[in-house]
């Protein structure tokens, strides 16, 4: 194609028709005032410049049409726009997009702040409850040693452990989980050194100057009461044994046979007690074995629930009114039972504390009980600090074998006897644990008694028989009708 070859432009058309507004303009009849025409692409479409610009502008404002805003609808050529687009405008555009980006960030940050502060509030509540539980369960003395009222003294793990306490208490009541509800109380605190308040650090320094003997910060290998760590390890076995024998006892009392099938437990969430709002969750959804017996061979979860609930969690399931429903183990989670469930879980530390206090009172009258509970007077003097022992003992000078031996001894005695902090404290936790155990046993027995009495009430039901006093005797078809009806007394009108 030579450069000389003539190429027509939009101005050379005889009739121009705007593809947008469909107005025509004949070259011999120009409109006044003149309107600008463009041919923006590679096909035959032409348009008024103003029409095309308003089309482009409106398309660019619509997200779904924006990709096609600068595209010819017929040949697909991309329109080229020329405009006065100085650096200032480009900068301002950029600035605008940055600012709107910042706006989005602020929105997201604001929303997350709201969520975070809500979450933080929940965290504070959980943590405070955890601290309360430690104080109730492990005793004030121990609490002051390893935690104190001032959160700034708390060891770092307190901020993880304490909020976990209420959560684990509640979870441990569900049949899905099994374990010592106070595990987070024990696992962390038994090995925890006393918090180093300024006052204590000063006394420790003073004492170090005074005493030269380097006694170890852990307790003796064998100790009474057993260390909390030991109790935590033994707890599952003890509960399993207890449940097995208590269930046997229960079957013996109730005269039922233990079943071996997996029970289906159905939860019916009816918080408003509204049938429409029920959500059903089937756990262990195996076909139910249908027997009319109640209370047989359930997984321990149920007993675990009963353990801490003085009123019994599911009374309706205990009564053999509807065998199918009983076999299904329908637990209606009403708003009342949910509150009882959560409340009961959170009451565990308080209940243990009460029971411990009762045991403590009783121990005043029995030296044997006092020895069993290992009641000690409150400790005097500052608690030992691990660091001190490591300072004074020339650890680095020991042989490897000796280091190993000391390490094993240290670990064993922490498991067996606990740390010195724990061992020298009045073992409030021990009498609280024993108290909780007694409480559980008592509650199970009360439950069983309730069950047994209910069963006996149902079994011994008789309907009292009455005479035909007040009935007209002539209406009765009697075996030996009286010879002289007139001699009988007249029926009295009731």
């Amino acid at each position, binding site marked *: 194609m030579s450069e000389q070859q003539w190429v027509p432009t939009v101005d050379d058309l005889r009739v121009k028709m705007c*593809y947008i*507004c469909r*107005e025509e303009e004949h070259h011999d009849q120009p409109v006044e005032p003149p309107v600008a025409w463009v041919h923006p692409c590679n096909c035959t479409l032409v348009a008024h410049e103003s029409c095309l610009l308003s089309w482009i502008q409106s398309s660019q404002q619509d997200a779904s049409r924006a990709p096609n805003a600068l595209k010819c*609808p017929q040949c697909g050529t991309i329109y080229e726009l020329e405009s006065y687009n100085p650096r200032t405008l480009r900068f301002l555009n950029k600035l605008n997009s940055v600012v709107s980006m910042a706006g989005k960030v602020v929105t997201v940050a604001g929303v997350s702040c709201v969520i975070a502060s809500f979450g933080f509030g929940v965290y504070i509540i959980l943590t405070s409850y955890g601290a309360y539980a430690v104080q109730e369960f492990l005793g004030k003395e121990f609490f002051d040693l390893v935690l104190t009222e001032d959160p700034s003294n708390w060891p770092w793990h307190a901020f993880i452990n304490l909020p976990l306490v209420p959560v684990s208490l509640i979870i441990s009541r569900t049949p899905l989980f099994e374990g010592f509800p106070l595990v987070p109380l024990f696992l962390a605190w038994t090995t925890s050194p006393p918090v180093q308040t300024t006052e204590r650090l000063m006394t420790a320094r003073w004492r170090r100057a005074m005493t030269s003997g380097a006694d170890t910060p852990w307790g003796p290998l064998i100790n009474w009461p057993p260390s909390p760590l030991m109790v935590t390890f033994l707890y599952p076995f003890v509960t399993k044994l207890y449940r097995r024998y208590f269930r046997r006892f229960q079957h013996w009392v109730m005269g039922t046979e233990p079943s071996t099938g997996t029970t289906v437990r159905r939860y019916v969430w009816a918080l408003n007690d509204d049938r429409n709002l029920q959500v059903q969750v089937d756990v262990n959804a195996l076909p139910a074995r249908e027997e009319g017996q109640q209370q047989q061979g359930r997984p321990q979860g149920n007993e675990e629930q009963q353990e801490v609930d003085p009123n019994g969690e599911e009374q309706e399931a205990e009564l053999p009114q509807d065998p199918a429903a009983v076999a299904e183990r329908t637990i209606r989670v009403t708003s009342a039972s949910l509150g009882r469930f959560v409340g009961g879980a959170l009451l565990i530390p308080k209940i243990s504390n009460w029971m411990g206090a009762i045991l403590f009172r009783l121990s005043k009258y029995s030296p044997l009980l006092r020895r069993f509970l290992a009641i000690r007077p409150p400790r005097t003097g500052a608690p030992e600090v691990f660091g001190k022992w490591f300072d004074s003992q020339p650890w680095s000078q020991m042989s490897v074998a000796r280091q190993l031996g000391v390490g094993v001894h240290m670990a064993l005695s922490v498991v067996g006897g606990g740390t010195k902090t724990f061992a020298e404290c009045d073992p409030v936790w021990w009498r609280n644990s024993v108290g909780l155990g007694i409480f559980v046993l008592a509650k199970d027995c009360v439950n069983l008694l309730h069950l047994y009495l209910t069963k006996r009430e149902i079994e011994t039901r008789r309907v009292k028989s009455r005479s035909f006093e007040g009935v007209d005797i002539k209406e009765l078809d009697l075996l030996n009708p009286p010879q002289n009806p007139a001699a009988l007394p007249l029926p009295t009108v009731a």
Partner: protein
Amino acid sequence: MAVSSRRLQKELTEIKTAGTPCGITLLKADDFQTWFLSLEVLGESQYKGEVFALMFRFDPQYPISAPAVQFVVDDKYKAPLHPHVYSNGHICASILGGEWSPVLSVIAVCITLQSMLASCKEKKRPPDNDRYVAHAPDNPKKTRFVYHESDSAAAP
């Protein structure tokens, strides 16, 4: 006179002088707000013998803004049973949304919809018909349709 009226006047004149394509008839165009056209698929198709009516609603920005187009559903007309046509007459077609261009016209839309019906293989409603119809706005332009190759889905 607004741009839309001038443009529609042109289209109307064109229809009256050149006529409409086969199967398309202008039913009513008394003003420049609402037009009705009837639509029929000629030849062999799933819709043989069925006649549908289309309602066009124009706003003053037409043709910069697309017309609102839907099938008439009343005593006389029904919406065609088609995977892109909801039972309330709303149509999921890209040319009525993001693909609209001023180069199109009322007749061009009719022809596109006619060929959409003609190429239909299976007479059925969109999969989300019930959900959409229950919440659909009166004006189909307020629906943001998501265009797929085969199925359509609407987000009112």
